[in-house]
């Protein structure tokens, strides 16, 4: 972004006049605040910013932002956003979606947006439940989830949003937590990445799935169950007493103890955000298996964007040609009919 387009704003400048209507205590409030706090730091202008959402609790988000906003239909935000960005690549496009919106009804669009690498930020609010329809299990709900539609527990296995993103060809994959102070840093990194930036945000649904992430988000549990990744830094957690080591015999990441900060001796490796193999292993870590939840920027290895390629090809194909409509419609196999006496 060049100087001409940057602007000094405050979080207040990004708040619309609409009353926020999420349930009291919903994680969405914290995410809204984090976004409104982050945008002034990016130097971007509200009028160049577009929030596009699908359907679900999270998708009400655009109404609360003093930007351009489009609350679309269930699952289709990535497709609408693709049209917005291709029509005007100068716009800064943010997609707000949820686990049902992005991975169930809209899974196809999410996959193709990531594969194409459209320059935008996708914030997937994952609460592992359908909130707006009153609590049915979602594609990220854990097996055995009891809900109105699965009174005896769900029997299907959940999708992993970040693994889905990586499988779809995403070049930027990150995770955050609704109320965590590091969320703005994750958002900033997502914005800095040119291309589709996929951010899974663990969001607590206080009404239908309260505390589903408490196992790693609770204050007490957090240090031992969260690992915040920094590119080039050793992968340490639990206040530096534990780390992740790559066992070369089975090619898996293992949690190892770090004594006296001597992480190298413990075999802990540095985080390389451009390594897709390690990224996949980090995505799969699970607090339920005694491993920390990988958070922050897991994978970041930019590639040329779809929108820039479309713009470049359009320009290249049009080079040296003029938009002469009369000439265009007169092309092909033509013949001239001369004036002749009119026959009745």
């Amino acid at each position: 972004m060049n100087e001409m387009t940057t602007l000094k704003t405050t979080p207040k400048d990004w708040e619309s006049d609409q009353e926020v209507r999420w349930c009291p205590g919903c994680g969405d409030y914290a995410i809204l605040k984090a976004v409104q706090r982050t945008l002034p730091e990016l130097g971007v202008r509200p009028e160049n910013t577009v929030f596009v959402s699908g359907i679900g609790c999270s998708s009400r988000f655009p109404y609360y932002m003093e930007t351009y906003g489009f609350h679309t239909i269930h699952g289709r935000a990535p497709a609408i956003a693709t049209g917005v960005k291709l029509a005007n690549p100068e716009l800064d496009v943010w997609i707000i979606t949820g686990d049902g919106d992005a991975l169930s009804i809209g899974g196809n669009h999410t996959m193709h947006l990531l594969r194409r690498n459209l320059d935008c930020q996708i914030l997937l609010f994952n609460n592992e439940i359908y909130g707006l329809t009153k609590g049915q299990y979602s594609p990220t709900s854990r097996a055995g989830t009891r809900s109105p539609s699965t009174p005896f527990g769900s029997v299907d296995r959940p999708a992993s949003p970040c693994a889905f993103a990586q499988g779809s060809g995403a070049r930027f994959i990150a995770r955050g937590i609704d109320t965590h102070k590091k969320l703005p840093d994750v958002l900033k990194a997502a914005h800095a990445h040119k291309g589709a930036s996929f951010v899974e945000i663990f969001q607590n649904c206080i009404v239908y799935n309260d505390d589903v992430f408490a196992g790693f988000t609770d204050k007490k549990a957090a240090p031992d169950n969260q690992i915040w990744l920094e590119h080039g830094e050793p992968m340490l957690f639990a206040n530096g007493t534990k780390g992740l080591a790559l066992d070369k015999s089975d090619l898996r990441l293992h949690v190892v103890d770090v004594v006296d900060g001597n992480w190298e001796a413990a075999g802990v490796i540095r985080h390389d955000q451009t390594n897709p193999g390690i990224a996949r292993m980090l995505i799969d870590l699970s607090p339920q298996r005694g491993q920390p939840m990988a958070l922050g920027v897991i994978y970041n290895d930019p590639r040329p964007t779809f929108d820039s390629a479309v713009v470049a090809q359009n320009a290249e194909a049009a080079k040296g040609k003029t938009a002469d409509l009369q000439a265009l419609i007169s092309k092909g196999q033509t013949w001239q009919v001369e004036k002749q006496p009119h026959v009745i």
Partner: protein
Amino acid sequence: MASAARELTPREAEARPPREEVVVRFAGDSGDGMQLTGGQFTLSTALAGNDLATFPDFPAEIRAPQGTTFGVSAFQINFGSTAIDTAGDQPDVLIAMNPAALKTNVAALKPGGLIIADEGEFGARNLAKAGYEVSPLTDGSLARWQLLAFNISQLTLDAVKPFGLGNKEALRCKNMWTLGLALWMFDRDRAPIIKWLRTKFAKAPQLAEANIAALNAGHAYGETAELSGPMKQHHIAPAPAEAGLYRTVTGAESISLGLVAGAQLAGLPMFFGGYPITPASAILHHLARLKEFGVTTFQAEDEIAAVASAIGASYAGSLGVTSSSGPGIALKTEAIGLAIMTELPLVIINSQRGGPSTGLPTKTEQSDLYQAVYGRNGDAPLAVIAARSPADAFDCAIEAVRLATQFMTPVILLTDGYIANAAEPWKVPDVAAYAPFPTAFLTSVPEGGFQPYARDEKLARPWVKPGTPGLLHRIGGIEKQDKTGNIDYSPTNHQQMTDLRKAKIDGIADHIPEQAVELGETSGRLAVVGWGSTYGPIRQAVSRARTRGLDVSHIHIRHIWPMPRNLGALLKGYEKILVPEMNGGQLKTVLRDQFLVDARSLSKVSGQPFRIAEIEAAIEEALA
């Protein structure tokens, strides 16, 4: 009230040149290149100055098993020295490249018509595949017609021998041999075809020369062989036509060109979101090559993404366009509702095909009229227009863009598989003669403040491009509050907004032409009312009936929704109303609903266009 049709005076009748028209049908295996042969024959017909209409009729399978009846691909052309409106009821000449092609097409041939058959393909194997026990070429079963059978396969092999092609490749030149013969039969110039072959096979000059040799051999065969009897050379005089530059055009081409013209007249870049589907894909293919006209094409992951991306592009200030056929339009339905709710311009083209479900992908039908007018959840009105012919589709595409951008609404343009694929001569219009309808984006806060759902005199809301300072706002599919566009579920507001959306679309009727009568009086005993591609057969049938003195008029509706203001009164001036449609009677039902008139249906859903005679018979019955 009824007035007799005007009879021709003897002088007029005398001044009328004898009507000369010929219908030729090329039929062969889907791998025989019949569409290509037909296309090139069409070109030579156009260059000869004849008026013409074509009907490509091919299977959904790309290469169906060789020699089978379901793998037959045919191309019919009707050409003549007077105005031609249809591809012809019954062929005068059938060129059958194998037994299956003969079997599936011969019944349609005019009694006494000419069959040209490739004897070389009538071996036991092919006969069995077509279900013949004995060869129809020898058992006398074709006695009703004139038969010319000779070994086109062998004659082709002989002609291309010097070029050293393999047997398979050599036999591929059969269609050019046949085309050469057809060119001779109708006294046509071979030069443009030879030029075309040299361009087509620029990278393989040997193939070009072999095909040219086959073409010349076919031509020479007609010229020199002792073909007494049926094989005669015919010269069809050029049809009288307005002076000017002409070209052949298919519906898919003219819609693409019309969209580009419409975008220029609106002063907008175009964004086209599409997903491959027969028979609509050709529009995507055409537009993909027109980048210099500010066209961005996007092959989406599915039909929903195709329309959704077009809506996103419209929101961002482009002309959003999407196109499909019935099954794809069904998938787009929810998103079209979003465009209605958010009041964004959107052009949706439906190249109709036989339905329901996958139906008949390559066959034509008009059965998506209900879908276009009514097929959405909620009270969701939009504008619907229908093209009557490949040439007419150019103007219809421009009209669709005009309505979409001037009224901030989705517009469905109905065409069909027949219009999309068929070619006809088109007098190239002067684009400067079209009145521009420039788009006025709102760029600053108007007096009294900005309201995203404020309305102009046409009830259209302002179009604001994201990126515009001072006009930030949010839109969405949830019910909007009048003027502010904020979320509002209140009962009075929903009533008001539903009424407003309807009033906006109804009001379009004040901005479209009144309904004209194509042929005949503005009142009388019978009106034949049509829409879309039935134009040609209805016009011919009405014209013939009128020549015989019957009191019948032809009305053809372009603006399906809203309908022209005068249509109801016009229809009430006729004692009877007949509505021929390639569906179960959809326009008929809408006319009855809108105007309480006793419209009767003439329905045909065979995947084939109406024959003139079918409509003529219905006219006679109605007036009996």
